[in-house]
């Protein structure tokens, strides 16, 4: 057998998922000097780029420019994309072992953590990710309905996703109109009756996870006032000391911005976006129809653990907030893949530096790897996935060199392509995506928008003239 990774025996890699972690791994594999590699990338959805398309806020187009990097990779002759093909459904692990030397799981963190409080499942209480996927035109979530006739909405969490949701709920029809948000979402949000949005953080301003550009942005909305309660903007002594010791100008700036908001008076804009601190939801209440009407909050104080982390501790003071919609954004977790060992507690694939391991033997499972949020949990920005994927690819290369890979019986390009065509005739190639992309962008240009998204598989097939 000729050496693996050469013209006569290319290293064949299957990547499951097509978000940033998937593409950064592909990039690092493809740029290895002297390595001949063939990459096939699979996505459950018809379109590539994962959360860049379905997660990044539709009014944050600049963040999406990273797809230019990904597109360049995808156009290489040794790269193929198979969209609308699901691991475990259309192709099983056994199929991949038959056709590839290595498989990399980069499927991200697709669900929310729960708050684990009574009343969490009343109608009107949603994971924030479902709302995000809905307004971004995710085919699986386009049919959801959110009752935007309510006046008050709570968003639980103070990360960037929470703040995205709060901001999107506060945009005017004019601000919405220039985004690539799904048409149905623009229509629904343009008629929204929401007047108060409460962003709820359990710790203080100095511990909020959102970044400074995000918090600044909500202070500059066209028709919404960003407000912070003065007593909640004031730092407790523990945080004050921590902030002084940290010598972190970014963090100091964040606190400054929030304290400035605390001094603002409502200017008469029609919406108010309250950024609340030191409160945790403890229960949701509903009406006779099972719809959420109210949220009970407990006030927290902060304490420092032995390792220096500042944690919230509930007091005996409560307050009630009337809300008709609740979005929780208190963390994300991955979804297990069939036959892949999953650490259910942390919501990640069992792995060591990206090598998938068998939890029983603690030994690596030959040929299987993982990167991105399904590897380490949800953290960081898009670029954080690059060093993460590089770490995994280093393991892949090391193992490939040792010959510790799957031993595929049919490691040729044609046989897997034929198998995909048999199992999922409605797959989407990268050429299909480029055609769809062109159509979306052209439609958007006519409306002064970045693009108008296709949101259903049927529409995409129709647009490509494939019934």
């Amino acid at each position, binding site marked *: 057998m000729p050496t693996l990774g050469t013209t006569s025996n290319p290293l064949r890699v299957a990547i499951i998922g097509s978000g940033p972690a998937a593409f950064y791994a592909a990039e690092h594999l493809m740029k290895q000097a002297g390595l001949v590699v063939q990459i096939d990338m699979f996505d459950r959805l018809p379109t590539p780029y994962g959360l860049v398309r379905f997660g990044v806020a539709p009014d944050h187009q600049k963040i999406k420019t990273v797809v230019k990097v990904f597109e360049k990779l995808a156009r290489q002759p040794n790269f193929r994309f198979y969209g609308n093909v699901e691991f475990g459904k259309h192709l099983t692990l056994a199929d991949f072992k038959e056709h590839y030397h290595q498989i990399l799981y980069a499927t991200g963190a697709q669900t929310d953590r729960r708050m684990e409080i009574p009343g969490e499942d009343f109608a009107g209480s949603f994971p924030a990710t479902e709302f995000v996927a809905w307004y971004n035109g995710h085919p699986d979530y386009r049919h959801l309905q959110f009752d935007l006739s309510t006046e008050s909405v709570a968003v639980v969490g103070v990360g960037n996703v929470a703040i995205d949701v709060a901001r999107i709920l506060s945009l005017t029809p004019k601000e919405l109109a220039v985004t690539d948000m799904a048409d149905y979402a623009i229509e629904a949000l343009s008629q929204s009756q929401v007047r108060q949005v409460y962003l709820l953080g359990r710790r203080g301003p100095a511990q909020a996870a959102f970044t400074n550009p995000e918090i600044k942005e909500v202070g500059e909305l066209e028709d919404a006032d960003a407000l912070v309660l003065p007593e909640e903007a004031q730092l407790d002594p523990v945080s004050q000391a921590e902030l002084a*010791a940290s010598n972190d100008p970014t963090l100091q700036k964040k606190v400054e911005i929030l304290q400035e908001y605390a001094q603002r008076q409502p200017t008469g804009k029609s919406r108010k976006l309250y950024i609340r601190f030191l409160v945790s939801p403890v229960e949701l209440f509903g009406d006779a129809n099972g719809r959420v009407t109210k949220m009970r909050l407990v006030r927290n104080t902060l304490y420092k*653990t*032995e390792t220096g982390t500042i944690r919230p501790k509930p007091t005996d003071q409560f307050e009630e907030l009337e809300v008709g919609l609740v979005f929780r954004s208190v963390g994300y977790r991955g979804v297990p893949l069939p036959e892949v060992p999953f650490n259910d507690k942390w919501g990640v694939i069992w792995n060591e*530096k*990206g090598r998938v391991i068998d939890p029983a033997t603690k030994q690596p499972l030959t040929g299987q790897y993982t990167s991105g949020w399904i590897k380490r949990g949800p*953290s960081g920005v898009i670029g954080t996935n690059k060093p993460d994927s590089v770490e995994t690819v280093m393991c892949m290369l090391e193992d490939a060199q040792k010959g510790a890979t799957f031993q595929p019986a049919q490691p040729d390009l044609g046989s897997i392509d034929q198998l995909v065509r048999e199992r999922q005739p409605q797959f989407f190639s990268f050429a299909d995506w480029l055609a769809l992309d062109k159509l979306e962008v052209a439609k958007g240009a006519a409306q002064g928008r970045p693009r108008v998204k296709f949101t259903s598989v049927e529409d995409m097939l129709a647009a490509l003239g494939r019934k």
Partner: protein
Amino acid sequence: MKISAILATKGMNVVTVRPEQSLREAIALLSMHNIGALVVVESGKPVGIISERDIVRRAANSEDIFSASVEDLMTKEVVTGSPQDDLNAVLQTMTDRRFRHLPIVDEGRLVGIVSIGDLVKAQLNEYKGEIDTLQTRISKG
């Protein structure tokens, strides 16, 4: 970033030792696993930590170091962390208090150990990622 993100990719191997084991055994474990510290465990609970630094210190003024027991040398007041701890806070604490290994305990159970090297690497990757994202936005935007 939380400590759990670091533990998630470290597999599930925490190399432990019992208090009554000999220092010879402890040193063999450190060498075999190429690590700098062992968590000392008694019936599943961490009761101490023993590091290469502890061993070197003892070796500097004791010839019969190999016959000592782990219990003789280990640090008993062991600081433990939680998977929910913030990376930056932990890094600050370890720097201030000058220890380099932190056992992580979740619901009373030892679930991992992080070294200052792990934390620095994670922080570095976090910064690298942010820089990459900003650079991409500038050069492609």
